[in-house]
């Protein structure tokens, strides 16, 4: 093979033919961004390109930036590279990025999940020669229950708390997971939100995503008058003074890491709900298979184990070191 479509540099994934980076972690002139989470959309780049769906949140988080939007599936030529963005199912507006140079197609997955959460644009397999896949949960112990099962579990917990006069306090990442949760639940009372969550809600609502009614908790909100409430907040807020004003409460945390009892217990919350915006073990296999790629590069997660497994399955697999965080929970306490 001649020049590879993408190379891996200390600034991030780079396309020599188009002279751009994808989700770079050091400042670059031109960055293509898969989604708005802080470890993928970083400040300081000269120009940003992201989906129309992802851009409002990225602007909200990064402030004044030179950015351009692109529709899913829209073909764009950048130098010698043809690029397009395709739904990754990770959160509203999230994308995989397809890069084609001289007939060779590479796809950068960003973060993804293959199940339809009802809110994000569902994951779309993109046939390619090389697939750069995340593997946050690349171990066979990670298999997710269906969203319906988890929703029923959280609804039951919320209802029991409401009946017992307790507030339900659910910790979740403020972009993506929080909105997914509020959309999938059957309201058992009012939904209250932390400021960080509500700010993202406002951005998504303005884009036309439909979210249930929520009440932002303000310093003067009489939270005790709001009986049977579910509070959705970043996990860090649940342990803070902010959380104490709600009186008697049961705490829960929604994350793929809650699949493991040790991590669940260490989190010190009453309940752990197994729900993730990353692909589980079967999801990773399914995604990789559906791309038809011969070469798989694995990034952030259990890369050594996962690449060994892929090699045994007959793939050409290699590890790419990146500086992306994982899902908020175990390895990366700081990314919320």
């Amino acid at each position, binding site marked *: 093979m001649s020049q590879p479509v993408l190379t891996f540099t200390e600034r991030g994934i780079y396309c020599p033919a188009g002279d751009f980076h994808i989700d770079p972690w050091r400042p670059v002139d031109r960055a293509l961004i898969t989604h708005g989470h802080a470890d993928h959309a970083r400040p300081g780049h000269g120009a940003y390109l992201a989906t129309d769906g992802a851009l409002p949140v990225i602007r909200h988080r990064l402030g004044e930036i030179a950015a351009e939007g692109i529709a899913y599936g829209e073909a764009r030529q950048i130098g010698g590279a043809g690029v397009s963005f395709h739904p990754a199912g990770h959160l509203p507006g999230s994308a995989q990025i397809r890069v084609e140079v001289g007939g060779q197609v590479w796809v950068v997955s960003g973060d993804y999940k293959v199940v339809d959460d009802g809110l994000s644009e569902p994951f779309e397999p993109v046939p390619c020669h090389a697939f750069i896949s995340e593997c946050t949960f690349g*171990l*066979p*112990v*990670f*298999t997710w229950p269906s969203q319906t099962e988890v929703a029923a579990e959280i609804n039951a917990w919320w209802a029991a708390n409401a009946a017992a006069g307790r507030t339900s306090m659910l910790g979740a990442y403020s972009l993506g997971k929080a909105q997914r949760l509020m959309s999938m639940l059957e309201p058992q009372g009012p939904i209250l939100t932390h400021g960080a969550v509500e700010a993202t809600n406002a951005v998504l609502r303005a884009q036309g995503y439909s979210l249930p009614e929520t009440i932002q908790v303000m310093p003067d909100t009489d939270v005790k008058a709001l009986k049977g409430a579910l509070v959705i907040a970043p996990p860090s807020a649940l342990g803070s003074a902010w959380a104490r004003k709600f009186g008697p409460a049961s705490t829960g945390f929604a994350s793929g890491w809650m*699949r*493991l*009892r*040790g*991590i669940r*217990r*260490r989190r*010190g919350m*009453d*309940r752990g709900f197994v729900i993730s915006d990353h692909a589980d073990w079967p999801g990773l296999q399914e995604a990789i298979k559906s791309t038809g790629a011969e070469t798989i590069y694995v990034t952030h997660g*259990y890369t050594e*184990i996962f690449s*060994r*497994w892929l090699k*045994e399955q007959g793939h050409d697999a290699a590890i790419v070191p990146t500086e992306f965080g994982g899902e908020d929970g*175990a*390895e990366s*306490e700081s990314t919320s």
Partner: protein
Amino acid sequence: MKRFARLFTEIDQTKKTTVKTKALADYFTHAPESDKLWCIALFSGRRPKRAVTTTNLREWAAERAGIPLWLLEESYPIVGDLAETIALVLPPPSQASDHSLSHWINVLRGLHDIPLEERKPRILNAWDQLDSTERFLFNKLITGGFRIGVSRKLMTRALAKATGQDEAVLAHKLMGGWTPETTSYHTLIEADDPAADQSRPYPFYLAYQLDEPPETLGPPEDWQAEWKWDGIRGQLILRDHAHHVWSRGEELMTDRFPEFARAADFLPPGTVLDGEIVAWEGTQPMPFSALQPRIGRKTVPKKLLREAPVILLAYDLLEENGTDLRDAPLCRRRARLDALLADMPAEAPVRASPLVPFADWEALAKTRAQARDFRAEGLMLKRRESPYLSGRKKGDWWKWKLDPLTVDAVMIYAQQGHGRRANLFTDFTFAVWQGNELVPFTKAYSGLTDKEFDEITAWVRKNTQQRFGPVRQVRPQHVFEIAFEGIQPSPRHKSGLALRFPRMSRWRHDKAPQEANTLDDLRALLAAYG
């Protein structure tokens, strides 16, 4: 099994003792008797004899899950629990079943009598009928260590609540050598026959550590002081012309310490003594290291019996002439003990642990400072009027230990913990200097806060120099103060010495690795206290 799985889930989902107690009490009220008995057994450290090895389990689970064995092995340290790892990788069950806890335990017990190749289909069949939580518990029954956030004390309290019996009475009933195979729920819990089991020990009364100055305990004349020995806490029972020796962990140690067979020559039947088993050389105990070779053994070679003969340094009399004395005040029990053991010949395997006289707290503090000269770890302070309670209770018994010995050492290896500590680096190896070389001398696992473990975990991930399986060699940068209770020679270790109860007492952020102690410093401690 569904009922037991529900109980487990309720317990696992809460940190509140009251909620756990209620869940257990409900179980004890509604579950069938055979299940109740097994539940009591499991939460008091008893479990069915292991019928298959964990190696078998791993292989069968990987095969059933359709993954290579190495992938299961790699997943295990990340999950931190083998029973859980297996439960998580298996495909969903294809059959439904609602067999009881006892049914599944009987399935496991039945495996002993059949050839190995017939065990596998039975285990696979069980996995195929159990949901994820039930499987986890089923696997736990095999892999052992049924620690799921229920202490024996909590279980006893719940049982008391469910049966209306007194908690201390129940605690006593649950002591001893019974298993669900040798008794029934009715015999163990409901029948009112304390003589049912002649070997049954009394629940041990455990002391708290004294962290405040002794003056806070009130007038010194209300208290008695004894040496705190560094041996094995034991209860010697003489009943019906047989003797039994129990450890605090309720392990029967009779065969391990044949010296006590002679106790019946000197003491009447119907006697129960509480004390410390120590290796004895004429006038004082030998260091704990002399006792150590006897701990792991079921039978004792003659040479060891000659070199390190043990005796019981008795400090309490729980039963005299068959009468339970535990409600009597300590001063009266002590007087009876002294009378019983007065004029004991030198060859008797029992002696009274002497009282340490003192006029005031200040004088006693001076005596305590000399504890190591008496081969003691410090003092025990006991209220003269106290009854003999069961379990760890605050107020009447205190251990007033010497300050531990300490050295400053450099962390050189790190390993992840298990269970709740999976994914966290919690197991460390420490080294001291010998010239320009760092010589490893101890491991330590405890003493840091959760926050410090998080911090050191992040650091280890970034500063790994080399990996040896699960062990990571890290940059020698961090200095920790290691506290320990004793030091002894050990030819098995590169450093030539071993510590007793090492733990991390402080993270010395203020010290550079060069400022850590040296092997010579440790050798000096060994010469002084070994």
